[in-house]
């Protein structure tokens, strides 16, 4: 009687472990101003909370954690574009140099990376796992599915966005700690 229970127990444990990893991730936002009287803001939110809240929000084109972008794509097939990026080796795809800034979009070790360096000294770094971008794009390539993206994001740790400007620094990242360490 006992033997058949062991694989079932292991299966249950594996399933629980999978969902627990998604539930235990925290999104952190830290904003630090540079002035003497500047504000400092820390936000620590469980991803599970954001995931629970998203489907309840309904604003204009945003519904049930998704919003449609089809009308603004002008015939561009985002799914095809993403597949091309995913299948390509690590490389810099776009580089824009202007008088005021240099922007670059690249693929690095499974991450979509965006770097913007302004002449004023402001720096923006965005680093999103390609799997998250894949989940964000709805199956038809015409919708952004934030809930699906968030679920996939829960499998990663690390920095997502950092902005260093003359006024303030902003950092957004994910880890398993409820508070900033």
């Amino acid at each position, binding site marked *: 009687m006992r033997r058949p229970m062991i694989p079932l127990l292991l299966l249950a444990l594996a399933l629980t472990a999978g969902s627990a990893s998604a*539930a235990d991730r925290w999104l952190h936002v830290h904003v630090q101003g540079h002035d003497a009287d500047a*504000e400092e*803001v820390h936000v620590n*939110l469980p991803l599970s909370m954001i995931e*629970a*809240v998203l489907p309840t929000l309904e604003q204009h084109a945003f519904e049930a954690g998704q919003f449609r972008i089809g009308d603004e794509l002008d015939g561009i097939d985002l799914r095809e574009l993403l597949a091309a990026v995913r299948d390509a080796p690590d490389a810099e795809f776009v580089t824009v140099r202007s008088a005021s800034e240099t922007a670059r979009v690249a693929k690095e070790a499974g991450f979509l990376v965006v770097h913007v360096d302004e002449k004023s000294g402001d720096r923006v770094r965005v680093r999103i796992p390609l799997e998250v971008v894949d989940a964000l794009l709805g199956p038809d390539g015409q919708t952004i599915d934030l809930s699906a993206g968030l679920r996939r994001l829960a499998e990663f740790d690390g920095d997502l966005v950092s902005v260093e400007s003359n006024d303030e620094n902003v950092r957004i990242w994910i880890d398993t700690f409820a508070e900033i360490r």
Partner: protein
Amino acid sequence: MSRSTRIVLLLLAALSVVVVAAVGVATAAVYRAGRIDVDVATDGGGVQLALPAVLADIALAVVPTGVVRRAAIDASRDTPVDAAQWLPAVVAAIEALDAAGDARLLEVRSSDAHVVVEQRGRRLLLNIDADDGTRVRLALPLRTVRRLLDRIET
């Protein structure tokens, strides 16, 4: 001991058990519901309040839904956002927070105030320390907040 005395003693014993059980259940309910703490201090004075949250639960159960809704509408009248629209999101957030465990959710440190919102021991805490001497300490059991929101929602 006569038969009638035995019956009276048995009834008294049964009654004692019922009373002890009722007190036990009530104590457990009060303990489980937690406590609401309000502590507001300003230069001119202050207010301090510590209530068992079970009283709020009872009030929510007794007060008609219309009164709760009207109070909520009155309270949200001066807010810049449509509170009713965000209510389902707040309910979902509170439920998820309850499951997530203790954390400092928000901390804002500015030149004139320090604001902290955190969850500790299934209670939502709001602490404000302003430079003008104003100090606010508010602690609400998440369960009470959920019950209040449920009543407003229904």
